[in-house]
């Protein structure tokens, strides 16, 4: 994720994306390496039940309310995975298991974007004859209109803000205000002909392909975006360019998808149209979801966070059920921010790093088997640029290193300990337990903390993400979780640690890291065109953050996912961190 104040960002080469493409794996999408038989963790690196059999009705469950089914207005990994069933962005991630799935491949576009003007201008050519669900042909004007919708932030506030930050006229008010005047009024996106769309950025940005891989670049016809399914109601029936379209949607309750007859498999090889109906039940209690999966009433839990304790027990203790489950690392890091303004002395912060009891923290998230792997770096192993190192004995002394912690306390002049508050999200599973575990461990070295819980909905916007609140309420540590918007070191680390990213509300650099070494390393990375040099820079930034003791990594999250045996083409998508929902079908 990036912020408004990025300046001096020069060209990160598009080679970043191309390098990933060199990772191997077959082209042509999701056939991959089939395995046929099912065993524990089979879907982590291969396709289970490969099949092109069509038909059947699939029932999918979701335990929460989605932020939105409008592809221009959603910001969750599981929704980005899901909306590919009815949307076609310019580029997308390759549908294949393992690291192969981190590559970008063209979707609506004929190829990955062509940069010019030093990376300030990006041109995409559209495939001809891609149709909407009403039979109209997609034109570049529709892509432009889709991007324009993302500017209507008071109506569609939930999506990412990359276009607002990167495009030249970021004051554009969106196509709803003064509609007659503002439709097609976004000057930084031009459409020289019906199959070409050009983006004019206000700075060079080599990762732009990653930006258009976000579902927001899906085309929308202005004539569709009115009336009963216009604006805030677009989510009730979004215009489809994918294999499925909405048949009916009772808001936040049940959604029914049926095949889009104008979808053409030849133009869209990364997704499949297999089932003849998909029913999504939302807001179903997680334990009911688990039961439904095991009993066969549901074929997928699309939240992708795995099963709860009861089902875990059943699955792990039954060999046949275990063979139908996977325990992947999902690319998420669970960690604690250590605020560098509230605890300004690095030795005091290092004391916290040493004193933390990694085993109880790991248990907070589910233990070694299903919770996660004890982490010692900020970047998880799934991110390009990951390198393993361990500055605070997380692996050698996971129970906490009281001796070293006390030494550090002496060095910062607080041999008797000190105190502050720990903030956490009350309704995010694992976070409250992690906060209490950390509190207990810190007490052992004399650091006394008080817990302050906040609902997730307000955590970043009103509390932990507001530096003024953090300072006035003495929040030295805030528990958080992080997954990158795109899988390279920049995507993972920038918003957490660059000095320019600190903002007064909705702040993601909660530790308020403003280290000249880190800032210059980011600068260096963005001005270097050499791919391997860039990749070598990310771990240096990671190391510096850890030296600053500004982040206490807890676990690289793992989840226990269950895949019912009658579902076909199941495999772990490394980018979304869960199964690829766009290729599933039912066994005959």
């Amino acid at each position, binding site marked *: 994720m990036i912020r408004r104040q990025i300046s001096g960002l020069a060209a990160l080469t598009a080679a970043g994306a191309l390098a990933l493409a060199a990772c191997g794996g077959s082209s042509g999408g999701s056939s991959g390496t089939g395995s046929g038989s099912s065993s524990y963790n089979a879907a982590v690196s291969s396709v289970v039940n490969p099949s092109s059999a069509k038909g059947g009705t699939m029932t999918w469950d979701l335990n929460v309310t989605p932020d939105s089914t409008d592809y221009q207005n959603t910001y969750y990994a599981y929704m980005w995975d899901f909306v590919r069933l009815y949307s076609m962005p310019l580029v997308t991630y390759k549908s294949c298991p393992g690291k192969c799935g981190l590559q970008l491949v063209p979707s609506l576009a004929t190829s990955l974007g062509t940069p010019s003007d030093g990376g300030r201008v990006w041109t995409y050519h559209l495939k001809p004859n891609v149709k909407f669900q009403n039979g109209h042909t997609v034109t570049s004007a529709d892509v432009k209109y889709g991007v324009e919708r993302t500017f209507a932030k008071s109506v569609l506030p939930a999506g990412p803000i990359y276009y607002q930050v990167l495009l030249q006229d970021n004051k554009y008010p969106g196509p709803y205000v003064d509609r007659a005047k503002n439709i097609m009024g976004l000057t930084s996106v031009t459409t020289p002909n019906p199959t070409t769309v050009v983006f004019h950025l206000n700075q060079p940005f080599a990762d732009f392909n990653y930006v258009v891989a976000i579902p927001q670049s899906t085309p929308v016809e202005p004539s569709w975006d009115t009336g009963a399914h216009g604006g805030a109601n677009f989510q009730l029936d979004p215009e489809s360019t994918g294999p499925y379209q909405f048949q009916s949607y009772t808001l936040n309750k049940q959604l029914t998808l049926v095949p889009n007859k104008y979808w053409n498999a030849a133009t869209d090889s990364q997704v499949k149209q297999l089932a003849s109906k998909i029913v999504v039940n939302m807001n179903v209690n997680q334990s009911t979801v688990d039961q439904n999966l095991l009993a066969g009433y549901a074929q997928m839990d699309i939240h992708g966070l795995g099963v709860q*304790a009861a089902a875990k*027990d059943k699955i792990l203790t039954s060999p046949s059920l275990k063979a139908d489950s996977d325990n992947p690392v999902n690319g998420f890091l669970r960690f604690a921010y250590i605020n560098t303004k509230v605890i300004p002395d690095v030795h005091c912060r290092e004391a916290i790093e040493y004193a933390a009891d990694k085993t109880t923290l790991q248990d907070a998230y589910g233990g070694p*088997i299903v919770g996660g792997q004890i982490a010692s770096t900020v970047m998880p192993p799934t991110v390009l640029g990951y390198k393993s190192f361990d500055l605070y004995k997380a692996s050698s002394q996971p129970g906490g290193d009281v001796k070293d912690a006390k030494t550090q306390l002496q060095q910062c002049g607080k041999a008797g300990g000190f105190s502050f508050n720990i903030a956490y999200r009350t309704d995010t599973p694992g976070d*409250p337990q992690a906060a*209490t*575990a950390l509190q207990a461990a810190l007490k052992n070295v004399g650091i006394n903390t008080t*817990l302050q819980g906040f609902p997730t909905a307000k955590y970043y916007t009103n509390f932990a993400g507001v530096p003024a609140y953090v300072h006035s309420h003495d929040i030295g540590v805030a528990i958080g979780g992080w997954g990158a918007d795109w899988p390279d070191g920049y995507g993972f680390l920038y918003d957490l640690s660059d000095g320019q990213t600190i903002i007064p509300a909705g702040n993601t650099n909660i530790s308020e890291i403003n280290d000249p070494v880190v800032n210059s390393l980011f600068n260096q990375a963005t001005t270097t065109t050499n791919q391997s040099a860039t990749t070598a820079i990310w771990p240096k930034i990671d190391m510096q953050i850890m030296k600053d003791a500004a982040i206490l990594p807890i676990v690289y999250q793992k989840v226990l996912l269950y895949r019912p045996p009658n579902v076909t083409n199941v495999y772990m998508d490394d980018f979304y961190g869960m199964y690829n929902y766009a290729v599933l079908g039912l066994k005959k």
Partner: protein
Amino acid sequence: MRVGSEQLMAAPLDVSPAETQASPEALIQGMGGRKIEGRSLGQIAWMRLRRDKVAMAGAVFIIFLILVAVFGPYIVQNPDTYHPNLLNQTLLSPNGPFGGISLAHPFGVDPQSGRDLLARVVVGSRYSLLIAFLATVLAVVIGVFFGLIAGFFGGWVDTLIARTMDVFLAFPLLVFAIALVGVFPSKATIGGVTLTGNTLRVLMLIFIIGFFSWPYMGRIIRGQTLSLREREFVDAARSLGARGPYILFRELLPNMVGPILVYATLLIPTNILFEAALSYLGVGIIPPTPSWGAMVSDAVQNQWYYIDPMYMFIPGMAIFLTVVAFNLFGDGLRDALDPKSR
């Protein structure tokens, strides 16, 4: 005893119409000074109560509970110490049957963190009882005050107070309590003292629970006052020159000690359940401080009770036994003070 909207103060009134009339008569018969065989009503009631074995059992349990709440936390081990080595590494459930019961941990340990369950239940009892007691005191004080005034003065005062009680009873209480906890700031300065954390939260809970239970008491006292104020002894007092406040507090109030005691005792378990419900919904005591309702909540919502049923069962039974004890004692007290309702 009234509970409604599952476990909260709901609809008003008390039990049967006969109750509100019967009690005062029985009370006054003895209290007014006509000593029968040298025994006051208090003594008669006490004798009756003593004979009621069930109520006595309840009383014994209550005393036991109070002792545990006051002294227990000093005897048991630290409720916040983690013992991850006592947990099964795959599922994080306690090793050993019945949630890991052993000599070192007589109630076992809780899943995921391995903290001693006995210690957590004992420390939790302190908060449950403290909040329920003080909230009841608050409710009784406010309720008696307004009930007396409403019943005695009648007229517009009565209408105003009675309608206010109606308004209170028209609110979905649980919802309001949850919302209020969410809206309260996390730091407050009252009279120069800054309160934060659990201190503030406990005070908030006492205030909210007490504040929402007063109409229950108010209605009863109002009913009592309405019937008592027509009695001869009130006329007698008036004829001697006594005025409002004197009659209220020196004549009427002493005659209502019985019902007040009874309904206060019956209000305590309701408030215990109210606090447990708030903890269950996540707006009670702040972790890691243990609370019975929060333990049941953790067991249920995170599904631990499937693999470690004791984790739900033990705090659940703690709540249950406490409530039963108070109910039995309260029932016994009511029966002792008014034999007709037996």
